[in-house]
């Protein structure tokens, strides 16, 4: 689940460490009486790959369309490099979009599609030709320059849509679920290509997706959107390791939510207890299945500062290299445990986790 690629500095520092390119300030939008976005504020840094992640209906596409200029916000402002962006028509913004279904012009060839933005900007013919050629070479589509979009495959159309946007050298590239129409293998390949292309050109990408795995693989930062509100904005590692809310913990990866209470610096959840640095009151913990270990009785416990408990395997799901066990404890507590695949475990198990891995999260209303 961790990001497979090495993280650039920006992911660790967040937007604050670098020059902010785009600034979204208190943007709200409703369609009729339906609020779609409520008070969204977000900074996007120079050269950053930011993913807006959310379920369908979370408002992610609307937010992207407001940045592109196809929708206008009811309130709030968008600034880019010290200039108010949201008052400009879409054709005056130095922002380009890769559309979900590519939106290639069917009456133009691949070459004409890619050169479209340069031609409407009335660039010299030889410059258009050079830049189109470079852009096509960049996405490895030079051989298809003369083809009509209907004659090339979905993956190839995807590359052309990318070249058509990047050839204009935008300050910011918006991508609206560009990989959703591709099959799984091509999709994974394009994720890697897209990410390395973004590094190469150094342009900020705002990528919209509903696929949390895709978001984890590609992003410097993820902005998780839920019902029109930002749930959490952080790097993939941060958002996975330190989810701020119960919704985030469940949406990004798989987790156990343990409900309990804190009294005098001790957290209690069912029959388990461990020391915490939290104030008294009810509390909700997120504990990732892979952070619960099965204690091998022959070897013994892996540490002193652990919470230990016993449980019985109720169900096991084989996932190849790992296995997900549903374990029920004597006190009725049910947890998921992810372990390396072993045949020998069955019946009763001795389990443990480190208190550091139980992350206190905020409650999320509804749909938990």
């Amino acid at each position, binding site marked *: 689940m961790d990001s497979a690629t090495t993280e650039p500095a920006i992911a660790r520092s967040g937007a604050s460490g670098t020059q902010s390119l785009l600034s979204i300030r208190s943007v709200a939008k409703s369609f009729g009486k339906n609020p779609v976005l409520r008070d969204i504020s977000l900074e996007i840094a120079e050269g950053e790959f930011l993913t807006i992640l959310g379920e369908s209906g979370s408002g992610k596409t609307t937010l992207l369309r407001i940045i*592109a*200029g*196809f929708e206008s916000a009811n309130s709030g402002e968008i600034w880019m490099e010290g200039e108010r962006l949201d008052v400009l*028509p*879409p*054709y*005056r913004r130095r*922002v*380009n*979009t890769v*559309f*979900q*279904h590519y*939106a*290639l*012009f*069917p*009456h133009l060839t691949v070459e004409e599609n890619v050169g*479209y*933005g340069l031609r*409407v*900007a009335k660039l010299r013919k030889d410059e258009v030709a050079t830049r189109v050629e470079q852009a096509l070479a960049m996405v490895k589509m030079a051989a298809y320059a003369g083809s*009509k979009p*209907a004659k090339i495959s979905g993956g190839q159309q995807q590359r052309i849509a990318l070249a*058509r*946007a990047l050839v*204009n050298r935008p300050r910011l590239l918006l991508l609206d679920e560009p990989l959703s129409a591709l099959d799984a293998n091509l999709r994974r390949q394009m994720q890697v290509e897209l990410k390395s292309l973004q590094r190469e050109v150094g342009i900020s990408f705002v990528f919209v997706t509903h696929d949390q795995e895709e978001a984890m693989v590609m992003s410097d930062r993820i902005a998780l959107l839920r019902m029109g509100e930002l749930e959490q904005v952080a790097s993939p590692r941060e958002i996975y390791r330190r989810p701020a809310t119960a919704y985030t913990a469940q949406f990004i990866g798989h987790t156990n939510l343990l409900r309990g209470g804190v009294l005098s610096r001790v957290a209690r959840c069912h029959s388990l207890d461990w020391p915490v640095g939290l104030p008294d009151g009810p509390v909700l913990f997120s504990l990732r299945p892979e952070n619960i270990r099965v204690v091998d009785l022959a070897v013994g416990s892996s540490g002193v500062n652990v919470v230990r408990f016993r449980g019985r395997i109720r169900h096991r799901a084989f996932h190849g290299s790992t296995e997900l066990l549903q374990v029920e404890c004597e006190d009725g507590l049910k947890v998921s445990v992810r372990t390396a695949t072993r045949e020998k475990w069955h019946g009763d198990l001795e389990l443990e986790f480190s208190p550091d891995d139980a992350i206190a999260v905020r409650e999320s209303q509804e749909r938990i």
Partner: protein
Amino acid sequence: MFSRAYRAAITVPPLLWVTVFLLVPYALLFCYSFWSVSSTQMIVHSWTLDNYRDLWRVNVYWQTLFRSMWIAARVMIFSLLLGYPLAYYLSFHAGPRKDLLYQLVIIPLWVSYLVRAYAWKTILGSDGVLNTLLQYVHVTTHPLEFLLYSPFAVVLTLTHIYTPFAFLPIYASLEHIPRNLVEASHDLGASPVQTFWRVILPLSIPGVLAGATFAFVLSLGDFLAPLLLGGPSGIMISNIVVSLFGAAYNWPLGAAISLCMLLLVLGLLFLSESLEKKWSFR
């Protein structure tokens, strides 16, 4: 899969219909165009090319044919000039009023052709609405004569009648343009005007061709508007065919002219269809 009786029951009626009402009349027309009329007004059933020769030798026939084409061409152009902006506005900018406006464009089609032609007569006549108004506001002192019984009146009336026919296919083709293409064009820096010329117009060409074909072909064969409003200078080729089959009693010549028009129209349909294919990309 289906029984023979069932298959016969569904194929024979349309075949019969096409044969009786289409193939037989056209075959007869074809035969008649190679026959002739005797001095005693009898049809002579011997093959001759005289009718086709007459078509080119007698000036009034080919001149009227060319005038009809010129009238039809003007009707086509004006129908497109009116129909396209209307369709464009309705498709892209009418918003919630779209359905209402669409109905308003379509409603005239439900009104009898004759009613619409007579309406223009009362508007354009020498003591009609328009002339009365022009004199009342002292633009002219005498009624303008060219308004009625002229090619002008025919073009005006036919344009009024056939604009919805040009509008409909254009509207349909504009409605079929995916809106994300328009957004993509704006996104790539093209202004609304550039987007119109580079994306919307090229993608609506099939509709324009279909609309142009409708307007041209339908006005070319029209005979009521020139009869009611055309006067001597506004006569069209169909009026001649009507009179040849009627009072003049020269069916063979009428058949020859009809066949020429039929070939002309078929050629146009073929041309427009192949152009439409060339301009459609899905």
